[in-house]
C-alpha cells in the first residue's frame, strides 16, 4: 500500500482513507477480509441488532440507469454472532473495524454497546438512519436532533470505543443534527446513509419492484446531495467526518475530501467496479496527487467553511 495514502483518524493511522460502509460485503469475516485485502483502510460490520433478523423478502435490490434502490431490511445474525465474525476478522487482519449497531431506543443501544465493549472492534457506529424500516420503527432517529443527542450522550457514557454517529440525508437541517451529535460527545460523524427512500415500478406486472415497495437510493446520482450535506456538516462541527454517497472514482473521493471528509465510504461502487474498487480508487487518488503536486493526502485542500 502507498504510504502517501496514510490517514490519521481518531488515534489510528489507517493505510487508506477508503472505508467499507455498513451493509456492503459484511455478512462474514471473509467478506470484511476480502475488502481489506482489496484496499479498504477501514471496514464496517453489518448493522447489528440485539436479535437476529432475516430482513425483507426479495426483491431487495433494484437497479436503474444511475443508481440502485435497496431495502434489505436490516438483515443480520444478531449482535453475538455478528461480533463473532468481527473477532474472527481481527484474528487475520490488522485493518481497523467499525462495529455498526442498530436499535430504536436508548436501552437497546446501551445493551448493544456493552456487547461491543467486549469485542475486538475498534470503533462503534450508531446507525441512527436506516431509511428502510419505517413500517416497523417509524422515521429514523437521525431525523430528530433531540433523539440523536439523547442516544449519543447515553452511549458515550458506557462505550469503551470511539463513537461514530451515522446520519441521514433526509432531514431539514443537517447542521442542527450534526451539532447535536457533536455536543453529545460523538467522536466522528458518518454521512450520508441512502437517500429517499424511492421506488420503481414494473410496468408489465404493475407492481413495485422492491417487495418493501420503497428503498434507499445509492450510487452516482446521490453524490451531489452527499457533497452538499457533508460540506454543511463539516462547516458546523470540528469532529472528523466519514463522507460517503455515490463515490465511484478517485475524483469523487477527492471531492469528498474537499467537502470536508477525512475518510471516504465506498459501497455501491463495489457493484459497478468490482471488489477491486478500493485499490482502483486508491490508485486514482495517487494519480490525482501526482498530477497536482501533492505528496500527502493531508495536503489536499478543503473548501473554506460556510459562515
Amino acid at each position, binding site marked *: 500500500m502507498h504510504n502517501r495514502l496514510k490517514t490519521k483518524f481518531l488515534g489510528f493511522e489507517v493505510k487508506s482513507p477508503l472505508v467499507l460502509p455498513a*451493509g*456492503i*460485503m*459484511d*455478512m*462474514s*469475516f*471473509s*467478506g*470484511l*477480509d*476480502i*475488502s481489506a*485485502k482489496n484496499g479498504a483502510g477501514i471496514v464496517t460490520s*453489518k448493522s447489528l441488532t440485539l436479535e*437476529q*433478523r*432475516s*430482513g425483507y*423478502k*426479495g*426483491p*431487495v*435490490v*433494484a*437497479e*436503474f*440507469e444511475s443508481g440502485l434502490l*435497496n431495502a*434489505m431490511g436490516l*438483515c*443480520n*445474525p*444478531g449482535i453475538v*454472532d*455478528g461480533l463473532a*465474525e468481527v473477532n474472527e476478522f481481527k484474528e*487475520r487482519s490488522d485493518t481497523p473495524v467499525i462495529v455498526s449497531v442498530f436499535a430504536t431506543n436508548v436501552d437497546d443501544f446501551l445493551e448493544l454497546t456493552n456487547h461491543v465493549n467486549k469485542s475486538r472492534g475498534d470503533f462503534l457506529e450508531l446507525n441512527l438512519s436506516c431509511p428502510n424500516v419505517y413500517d416497523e420503527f417509524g422515521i429514523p432517529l437521525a431525523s430528530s436532533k433531540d433523539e440523536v443527542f439523547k442516544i449519543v450522550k447515553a452511549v458515550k457514557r458506557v462505550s469503551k470505543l470511539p463513537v461514530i454517529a451515522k446520519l441521514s440525508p433526509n432531514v431539514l437541517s443537517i447542521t442542527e443534527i450534526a451539532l447535536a451529535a457533536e455536543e453529545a460527545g460523538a467522536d466522528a460523524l458518518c454521512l450520508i446513509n441512502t437517500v429517499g427512500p424511492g421506488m420503481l415500478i*414494473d410496468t*408489465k*406486472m404493475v*407492481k*413495485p*419492484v422492491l*417487495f418493501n415497495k420503497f428503498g434507499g437510493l445509492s450510487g452516482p446520482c446521490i453524490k451531489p446531495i452527499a457533497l452538499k450535506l457533508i460540506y454543511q456538516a463539516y462547516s458546523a462541527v470540528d469532529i472528523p467526518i466519514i463522507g460517503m454517497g455515490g463515490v465511484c472514482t478517485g475524483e469523487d473521493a477527492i471531492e469528498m475530501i474537499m467537502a470536508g471528509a477525512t475518510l471516504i465510504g465506498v*459501497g*455501491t461502487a*463495489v*457493484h459497478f467496479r*468490482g*471488489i477491486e474498487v478500493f485499490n482502483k480508487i486508491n490508485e486514482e487518488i495517487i494519480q490525482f496527487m501526482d498530477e497536482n503536486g501533492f505528496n500527502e493526502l493531508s495536503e489536499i485542500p478543503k473548501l473554506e467553511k460556510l459562515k
Partner: protein
Amino acid sequence: MDKRITLKISKIEDETKDIKTFTFNHKLNAKPGQFIMLTDFEGGEKPFSISDCSENEFSITVKKIGEFTSRLFQKGVGDYMSVRGAFGSSFFVSNGKVLLVGGGYGSPPLYFLAKKLLKAGANIAVVNGAQTKDDLVFCDRFSKLGIKYQNITEAGCLGRKGTSVDLAKGALTKEKFDFIYAAGPEMMMKALQGVIGEVDYEFLFERYMKCAIGICGNCTMDPLGIRLCVEGPVLPKKIIEQLTEFGKYRRDASGKRIRY
C-alpha cells in the same frame, strides 16, 4: 445495466410430481452453470440454475419446496415473471473425456452443460442419483443426447441402490477422466471430492442469495470471501480446496451460520 426483464412463461413441463421446467422466450445468452433471479413481486426473489438455453429461449427446472415455488407452480403459460440475469461464473467447456455427476434436482444445469460439451467434441459420461425415482430428473433428456448415462437411487427403486458418488467411484476406478463436473447437494459433492483423486474438477454451489450483484455479502464463502453470485456459483478445484466452510456450514437469510 438494468438487467431486469419481465417475461411470459412460454412452456411448462412436468418432470416429476414436484419438479417442473419453466421456459421463457428470450435471448438470454447464458452459459452453463449460470443462474437467474426470478420473482413474481409477491414476496421472494430466488436464484435458479439455467437448465437449458438456446438462441431464443431458456429454461429453469424447479422443485416445489416452499412458499415461493408453490406460488410458481400455480402459474400457467402466458403468466408474467420477472427475471434478472444471467449471473455468475460458468463451467469450463472441456473437449476431453469428462464425467458429470448429478444429485437430486441439481442435475438439470448439467444437462445444459452436456449439450455444450457435445458441441465441443467432449467424450461424456453422466451419472445421476436421487433419493427415489420420483426425485430423479432429466433421465430422458440425458439419454436422448446419445451419451453414456447411468442413474441410481438411494431407495433402490431402479434396481441399484446407492448414490451418484457410488457410480462416480465405479467409473473412476474403471476409466481415466480429464475433468469432472458436479452439481447437487453439498454433502454429495463433499463425498465426491473424497473419491476424485488427482482429476481436475468444478462444482456448482448453492448459498442464500439476495442481491445477486456482489454487494450484500450474504453468499460469501469462508475464508476467501468468494461471492457465490459473482465469482461462483461454479467454482474450480483450486478454490474449492481452500473453502473451509464447504460441507461444514452455510449462512441463512440473517447471516447466521447453519451447520450441515
